[in-house]
C-alpha cells in the first residue's frame, strides 16, 4: 500500500492571507473578488506541497457575515471556486471542495436562529458552489449538531456532490455546545455523509484520542484537520513546528483516519512535512461492527444492554394529557419528559396523536420543546408519515421511529424517511391479517420487515422488533407466545427487541405485580428496550435488578447508587404536614403539602371556592411580603411554584370530570423581537398562572405579527410585553403600534429593566408593571 490510500488536504487559509496583509477582523472572502490572484497563489502553494483536495476560501461566505460587505454570497462563492480551480489547474486529480463554515449565529433552542432559516442560509451557499463547479462539499468547524444537520441536509437535498463533515472539539471530548463524539458519529453517519471527523479544535496530538473513539462509532472514512498546536493568546501565534505537526499527524492513519490536513496556524510547510511523513502510511481498516445506539443533541444511548423507553408522553387514556394537547399546553407535555428523565428513562417515546389535531405541527413543536428541556434521545411515535417526517426533520440527533409493521404500504411510506434522516425503526409483528397467534408467524413478519429495511439501506442494527404484548386477562396463552417470539427474533434474526410491557396487566387487580413479573421474564427472553412507565419504581427496580443479574451493571455500581439515593431521600418525607394550613404551605414553598392540602380542601368546597378563598388570598399575602421586602425573589417564586402544585390538583380533577376550566382569562406574554432575555417574563408568567390566568407564552424574540395574530385568534384582552435592552424597547413600541393598528381591543402592559412609568406611556402602553406582583394587580383590574 502507498499514500494512494491517504487523501491529503490543505492547511490554513486565514493565517496565510493575514501574512499577505489581510487585516485581522476583515472578511477574507472579499479577496476572492478583489484579489483573486493572492488567494489562488496561496492555494497553489498547498497543491505544490502535496494537497489532493483544496478548500475554497468561502468559510464565512454566508448571508449574515457578508451583510454590508458589498458583495453577494453568490459572488463570493463563485469567486472562491474560481480561485481554487485556477490553483488546481495543471495538477491531475486535485479536487476543489466547497468550504462551508458556521453561520456565526446559534440555532434554537439556545439561540435565536430557526432550523428552516439556517437551512436556507446553507442552501444558498450550496447552490452557488454547485453552479460554480465545486467537486465536493466540506462542512467544517461546527460545534452545534443542529447547525451541522441543517447544513448537511441543505447539501444533500440541493446537490449530488459528496459531503464531508467535520466538527470542532475540546480536549474534554465535547464541542462548545456539549456534543459528544458518539452523538456526532451516530447523527452524521445516519444522515449519509461520505466522510466525517474533526478540524480546528486542538493540535494533532490532542486530537488522536478523539479519533480513536470516533472509529468505534462509525465505519465511514475519518477526517483529521488539526491546528498547529495551541495559540498564544497575546499574539495569536501557534506553538508547534511543521516537523512536530507531521510526526503527530502520521499516527492518525493507524487509528483509522484516511483524510488528513491542517487548520489554523498551519502553512504549506506543514502540509509538505505531512506529505513526507505520510508517504508510506496506510489507514487501519474500520471495525466490522461499529457501536450502535441513538442520541439526542449531545448525549448517546448506546444499544449495549437493557435501555428503558418512557411511555408517558402519550394521550391514550389520559384526560389531562388530552386537554393539554387540545390547549397547546406544551409545558405540561415537556414536564412529563423531564419527570421521566429524572426517574431514570433512557429514551422517551413521543406520541401526540389526537383526532382533530394537526399532528405534524404538534409533533414538530413537541420535539423541539422537549429537546430544549431534556438530553434523552426521542422515539417518534405516530402512524402518520407526515407527523413522523415533521418530527425527524427538526430532531437533533438520531431518533427511533415507532413504528412500521408488515404491511407493504406502511413499509413503503415510512422506511425511506428512516433512511433519509438516519433513524432506527421499530417494526411491529403484525400485518394485513392482524397479529399472528403463533410465535413463528410473528418471527416471519419480523424477517420481512428486516428484509425491507435492508433493501432500503437501513443497517440491521437500526431495526428493532416489537413482538407485541397482548392482555393476559383476555388471551392468557399469548404471554408465552410473545416471550417465545422475543427469544427467536433475538437468536434467529440477531435483532434487538422492543416491547410495550404495561398492556399485559390490563383488567387485572394489582396490575404492577403482573407487569413487573412479565417485564423480568421478557428481559430474560432477550428484551432490550422495554417501553414502560419509569415513574413506577417497581418497574425501574426490576430493570436495575436484571442489569445486575445479567452482568450488564458491572460490580452492581448502578444498582448500589440507585438504592443509596432512595434510602437517603426516604427519611425527610416521613415528616408530617398534617397541622399546616394551605396558606402556610404556600408561604413556605412546599409543593407536595400544598397539593395534599388542596385535595383535602376539595372534599369540603368546590374548585372555584378553593381557588378564590384559599389559594389566591395566600398568594396575595406572599405578594405583600415581597413588596415590603420581607421575602426576596426566589422565595416569591418558591411560593408561586407551591401554589402551582395546588392548581394542578384542581385542573386534573376538572379534566377528569370533563368540566369547564377555572381560568380567570387569557393573557399573552412575550419578550419582544430582537430580545433574548426572558427570565423576567418567566417570573411574571409563574405569578400570573398562580392567580388562575391562562398564560399564552409566546417565548422570546417574538415578532409583532405573532403577537397580533395570537391576540386576535385567541381573543385575548390583556397582552404583556417584556424588553430588557434600550435597543429592543424600539421593537416593543412597534409591537404596541401593530396591536393598535390591528383594531383588536386589548390592554397592553409592559415591563423590563430599562422601562419607566413615563417611558411606558410614551410608547403607548396602557400599564407599566414594575414587577411580577404588579402585573397580577393589573390583570385583576383588566380581567377580574
Amino acid at each position, binding site marked *: 500500500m502507498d499514500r494512494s490510500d491517504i487523501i491529503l488536504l490543505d492547511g490554513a487559509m486565514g493565517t496565510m492571507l493575514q501574512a499577505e496583509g489581510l487585516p485581522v477582523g476583515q472578511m477574507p472572502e472579499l479577496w476572492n473578488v478583489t484579489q483573486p490572484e493572492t488567494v489562488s497563489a496561496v492555494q497553489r502553494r498547498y497543491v505544490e506541497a502535496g494537497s489532493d483536495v483544496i478548500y475554497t476560501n468561502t468559510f464565512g461566505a454566508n448571508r449574515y457575515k457578508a451583510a454590508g460587505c458589498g458583495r453577494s454570497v453568490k459572488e463570493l462563492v463563485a469567486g472562491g471556486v474560481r480561485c481554487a480551480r485556477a490553483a488546481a489547474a495543471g495538477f491531475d486529480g486535485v479536487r476543489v471542495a466547497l468550504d462551508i463554515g458556521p453561520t456565526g449565529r*446559534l440555532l434554537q433552542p*439556545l439561540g435565536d436562529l430557526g432550523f428552516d432559516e439556517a437551512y436556507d442560509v446553507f442552501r444558498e451557499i450550496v447552490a452557488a458552489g454547485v453552479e460554480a463547479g465545486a467537486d465536493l462539499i466540506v462542512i467544517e468547524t461546527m460545534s452545534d449538531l443542529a447547525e451541522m444537520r441543517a447544513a448537511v441536509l441543505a447539501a444533500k437535498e440541493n446537490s449530488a456532490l459528496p459531503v464531508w463533515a467535520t466538527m470542532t472539539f475540546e480536549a474534554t471530548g465535547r464541542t462548545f*455546545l456539549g456534543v459528544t463524539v458518539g452523538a456526532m458519529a451516530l447523527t452524521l453517519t445516519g444522515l449519509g455523509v461520505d466522510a466525517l471527523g474533526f478540524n480546528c479544535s486542538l493540535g494533532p496530538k490532542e486530537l488522536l484520542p478523539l479519533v480513536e473513539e470516533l472509529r468505534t462509532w462509525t465505519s465511514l472514512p475519518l477526517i483529521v484537520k488539526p491546528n498547529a498546536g495551541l495559540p498564544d493568546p*497575546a499574539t495569536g501565534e501557534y506553538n508547534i513546528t511543521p516537523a512536530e505537526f507531521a510526526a503527530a499527524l502520521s499516527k492518525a492513519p493507524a487509528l483509522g483516519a484516511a483524510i488528513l490536513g491542517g487548520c489554523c496556524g498551519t502553512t504549506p510547510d506543514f502540509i509538505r512535512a505531512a506529505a513526507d511523513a505520510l508517504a508510506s502510511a496506510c489507514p487501519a481498516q474500520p471495525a466490522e461492527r461499529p457501536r450502535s445506539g441513538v442520541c439526542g443533541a449531545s448525549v448517546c444511548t448506546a444499544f449495549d444492554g437493557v435501555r428503558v423507553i418512557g411511555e408517558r408522553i402519550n394521550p391514550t387514556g389520559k384526560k389531562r394529557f388530552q386537554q393539554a394537547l387540545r390547549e397547546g399546553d406544551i409545558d405540561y407535555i415537556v414536564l412529563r419528559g423531564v419527570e421521566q428523565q429524572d426517574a431514570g428513562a433512557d429514551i422517551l417515546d413521543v406520541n401526540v396523536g389526537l383526532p382533530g389535531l394537526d399532528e405534524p405541527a404538534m409533533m414538530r413543536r413537541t420535539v423541539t420543546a422537549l429537546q430544549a428541556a431534556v438530553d434523552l434521545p426521542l422515539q417518534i411515535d405516530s402512524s402518520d408519515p407526515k407527523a413522523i417526517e415533521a418530527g425527524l426533520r427538526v430532531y437533533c440527533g438520531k431518533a427511533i421511529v415507532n413504528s412500521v409493521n408488515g404491511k407493504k404500504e406502511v413499509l413503503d411510506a415510512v422506511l425511506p424517511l428512516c433512511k433519509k434522516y438516519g433513524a432506527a425503526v421499530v417494526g411491529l409483528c403484525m400485518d394485513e391479517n392482524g397479529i399472528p397467534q403463533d410465535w413463528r408467524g410473528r418471527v416471519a413478519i419480523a424477517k420481512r420487515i428486516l428484509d425491507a429495511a435492508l433493501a432500503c439501506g437501513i443497517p440491521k442494527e437500526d431495526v428493532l422488533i416489537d413482538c407485541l404484548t397482548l392482555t393476559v386477562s383476555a388471551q392468557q396463552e399469548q404471554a408465552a407466545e410473545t416471550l417465545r417470539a422475543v427469544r427467536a427474533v433475538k437468536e434467529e434474526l440477531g435483532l434487538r427487541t422492543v416491547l410495550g410491557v404495561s398492556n399485559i396487566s390490563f383488567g387485572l387487580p394489582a396490575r404492577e405485580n403482573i407487569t413487573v413479573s412479565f417485564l423480568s421474564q421478557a428481559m430474560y427472553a432477550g428484551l432490550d428496550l422495554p417501553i414502560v412507565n419509569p415513574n413506577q419504581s417497581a418497574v425501574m427496580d426490576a430493570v436495575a435488578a436484571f442489569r445486575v443479574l445479567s452482568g450488564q451493571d458491572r460490580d452492581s455500581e448502578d444498582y448500589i447508587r440507585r438504592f443509596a439515593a432512595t434510602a437517603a431521600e426516604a427519611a425527610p418525607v416521613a415528616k408530617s404536614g398534617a397541622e399546616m394550613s394551605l396558606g402556610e404551605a404556600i408561604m413556605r414553598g412546599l409543593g407536595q403539602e400544598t397539593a395534599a392540602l388542596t385535595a383535602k380542601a376539595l372534599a369540603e368546597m368546590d374548585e372555584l371556592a378553593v381557588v378564590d378563598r384559599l389559594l389566591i388570598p395566600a398568594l396575595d399575602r406572599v405578594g405583600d411580603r415581597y413588596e415590603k421586602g420581607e421575602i*426576596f425573589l426566589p422565595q416569591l417564586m418558591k411560593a*408561586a411554584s407551591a401554589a402551582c402544585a395546588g392548581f394542578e390538583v384542581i385542573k386534573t380533577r376538572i379534566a377528569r370530570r370533563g368540566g369547564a376550566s377555572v381560568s380567570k382569562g387569557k393573557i399573552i406574554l412575550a419578550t419582544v423581537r430582537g430580545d433574548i432575555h426572558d427570565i423576567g417574563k418567566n417570573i411574571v408568567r*409563574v405569578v400570573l398562572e398562580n392567580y388562575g390566568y391562562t398564560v399564552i407564552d409566546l417565548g422570546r424574540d417574538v415578532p409583532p405579527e405573532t403577537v397580533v395574530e395570537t391576540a386576535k385568534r385567541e381573543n385575548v384582552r390583556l397582552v404583556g410585553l417584556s424588553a430588557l435592552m434600550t435597543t429592543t424597547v424600539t421593537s416593543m413600541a412597534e409591537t404596541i403600534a401593530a396591536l393598535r393598528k390591528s383594531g383588536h381591543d386589548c390592554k397592553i402592559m409592559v415591563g423590563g429593566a430599562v422601562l419607566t412609568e413615563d417611558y411606558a406611556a410614551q410608547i403607548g402602553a396602557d400599564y407599566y408593571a414594575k414587577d411580577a406582583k404588579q402585573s397580577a394587580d393589573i390583570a385583576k383590574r383588566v380581567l377580574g
Partner: protein
Amino acid sequence: MEARLDRIPRAETLQYLRYRGSELGRESLDELARCETLLLQTARPRLVWRLFPLSADGSLRGADYRPAGEDIRAFLADCDSVVLLAATLGAEAEALIRRAAGRDMAQAVILDAAGSAAVERVCDNFCDDLAAALAPRFLTDRFSPGYGDMPLSDQRALFRVLDVSRRIGVTLSESALMIPQKSVTALIGVSDRPQKKRGRGCESCGMRENCSYRKEGKSCGSF
C-alpha cells in the same frame, strides 16, 4: 492566562436578585449554596483575549477596528494599548439556567443571578492575572459595548477581531446580543500611569437613567 472560576461571590448574586436585606432563612441559604455548586460544576469558563497597540486615531494597530464613540476615547485617553477580552461560562451553564426555568423558577432566578456574578468573577480574575503579567504598567477598568455611547453593534467588530465564535463558542444574535447570555466582552486600556477606577460608577453606566437602584436612591455598588 486561563479562565478561572474559583468561586461565585454571594454578595454579587444577591445584588442581581435585588435583595434588600430581609431575613434569608436556612432554606434560602441552602438553595443559594446549591445553585452556586451546581453552576461551578456545570460551567466551563473560557476566554480569549489579545493585546493591540493603539494608533493616534484611536484604532487598533494590526486589526480592522476602531472603537466607536466619544466615551471610549476618553476612557483610553492615557493608554497606548488596549486588551480585547471575551469571556463566557459556556453553553452547558446556559442550558442549566434555561432548563431550570421550566421546572423550578425559584432555582432559575438564583442560577441566573449567580451566573451573572460568575462570569464577572471570571473577568475579575482575568484582570488580576493580566495586571500581574503587565506590571509595572497599569490597567483601566473594563469597558463593554453598550456602555456610555458605544453602540451594541461594536460587538460585531470585536467578535471578528477576536474570532470569538471559533475560539470560545459564543455567538451573536440578530440584534447583536451574546449567546450564551452569561458572556462578557470588554476593552481594557493599558497605560504607564495609574488609572482611576471610573468604569463602575453611575456616571459611566448605560443604565443610569433607568436603574432600579437609582430609582430608590441607591446604587448597585451600595445597596
